[in-house]
């Protein structure tokens, strides 16, 4: 029986597959330039060569966390913004429940100030960049909604627009959930309890954090246990692909960008069995 050499996919590849699959589901073709084309090429290569494709449980768990974090970061900011608008526009006349009107000309600056205050509370660059992108999303959406209104609009209506954006996020969640089930049929989840010694080696040798070390260690562990070649596919150059030669030379795990992944796997297939001396190499 021929060896079932295979791919282990990194979280960035799964996210791209998920994004593309959700679009295919509704008959859309996302405009994603080279990155999208690269993933398409990888999927075609997998299908054409009938290659097995897996992702470790740590990768799938990481993907779920990212999805939840992105949703929460958008929704929590939207909720805070609603509360800020209600506070700023609270009725001044006694007995009235109606918020003061929102001036399209000047009250957009309330939103600007809201975001400035939010930025001040953040320290990490990642959080700041995340918030910057959420700000762009929210303001862009509100601008579109307010385009055909006069000089003022009821603040309750602005709140309703913000809730509508959350409805749109939910539509996207809905498509993504279905796409996730379809991706899981194509990329089987492998429950792997990572060897802590092996994970530590990745951390020490390459200065990686828990996630990258756990994902790559899972792939190497599978290669060793199943006696098959594994190519770990990722688009993360900073942490993984730039270390390709060192990782292969020290640990015999091939890491590749999706462009070359199929070539690497076919090339490894020509070689002898993967070395089974992981324990002595550690």
């Amino acid at each position, binding site marked *: 029986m021929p060896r079932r050499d295979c791919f282990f996919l990194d979280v960035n590849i799964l996210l791209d597959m998920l994004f593309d699959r959700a679009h295919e*589901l*509704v008959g859309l073709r996302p405009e994603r330039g080279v990155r999208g084309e690269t993933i398409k090429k990888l999927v075609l290569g997998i299908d054409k060569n009938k290659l097995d494709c897996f992702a470790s449980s740590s990768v799938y768990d990481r993907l779920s966390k990212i999805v939840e974090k992105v949703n929460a970061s958008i929704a929590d900011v939207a909720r805070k913004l609603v509360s800020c608008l209600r506070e700023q526009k609270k009725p001044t006349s006694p007995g009235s429940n109606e918020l003061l009107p929102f001036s399209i000309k000047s009250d957009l600056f309330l939103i600007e100030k809201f975001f400035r205050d939010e930025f001040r509370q953040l320290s990490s660059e990642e959080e700041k960049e995340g918030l910057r992108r959420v700000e762009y999303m929210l303001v862009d959406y509100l601008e579109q909604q307010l385009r055909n209104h006069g000089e003022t609009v009821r603040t309750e209506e602005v709140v309703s627009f913000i809730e509508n954006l959350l*409805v749109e*996020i*939910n539509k996207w969640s809905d498509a993504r959930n279905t796409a996730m*089930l379809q991706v899981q049929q194509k990329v089987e989840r492998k429950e792997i309890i990572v060897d802590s010694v092996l994970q530590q080696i990745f951390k020490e040798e390459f200065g990686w954090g828990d996630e990258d070390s756990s994902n790559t260690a899972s792939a190497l562990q599978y290669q060793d246990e199943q006696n098959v070649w594994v190519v770990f596919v990722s688009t993360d150059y900073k942490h993984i692909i730039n270390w390709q030669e060192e990782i292969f030379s020290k640990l015999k795990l091939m890491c590749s960008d999706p462009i070359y992944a199929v070539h690497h796997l076919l090339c490894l297939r020509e070689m002898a069995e993967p070395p089974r001396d992981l324990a002595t190499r550690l």
Partner: protein
Amino acid sequence: MAFSGLGLIPSTFRFGLSSLQPVEEVFTKRIGHLKFIKKTLSLRPSYSFEDYTRFSSLAVVDRLDHMPQNFEKEKLAEVLTSWYQKAIESDSDLAEAVESLGTGGLYTDQGQRNFHRFVSTFSRKYSEGLEGFVKAEMSRFVNSDLSFSLFDQLSVFHRNYSRFMKLMELQTASLMKRVSMYHRERGIKRSRPIVEEFKSAVRPIVDAADLARISALSLDLYIDICNSRDYVDIFNRKTLCRDRLDQREYERLFTSFSKDLREFDAVLIGNNVELIGKETSFKESVAQAWYRVAEVYLSGS
């Protein structure tokens, strides 16, 4: 969740699918510090919509392990049942569809037509109200301190439920065609197996829908009662606070709901992926903006 009489459809769908079945009813009553549990087993035919409404409420309430002090399961099930019945009665189309369903079952032409009409009416109503249900969930999120994923998943459930009803509508239409063809060619006896075949084909879908619905409702009901002063306050608009919940019970119910929702989704995909595609939509600009935020958290990993 925007509580709605429409939420009864899988239980009622079962009305046409099953006949006599064993039913275990569990009632819990608190007297002072003592808790009495009474279990009764009975065999009963599924005679009426009211019966199903009651069973459905009992199933929802029975999922709750932790009850806030002011509430009892038995009374809660009664409140839920009467709320459902009022919701149906207040909508003349739904009330008429339920009325015409009668007890004919699926073995007569008239019974099948009534059943199809019933399913179509519920399906249309749910589909018409869908965006309103989801918008109501988003308003509840904005006016609470609970996580977005709760309201997001409850809304995804509504979307799946709407697809489920469309699927059942298609299935019953196709059943009617097939039975009528067999009936013309081979008589009533030969058309019976077609009905049986139909029942076994849709049963896994109805089961998955039922489980997800019961999980969704019990989670939602739990959050609602923890934030309600008394029985009268249930289902009224209110601000939902996380501090009022027992965190372990909330996590348990949410985990169970998420699992049942995933299974419901998987069953639907397995049965008609084209329909799912047709019934799914999103704004490309929102998906792109979402992806750009995701990229930030990816690169930080």
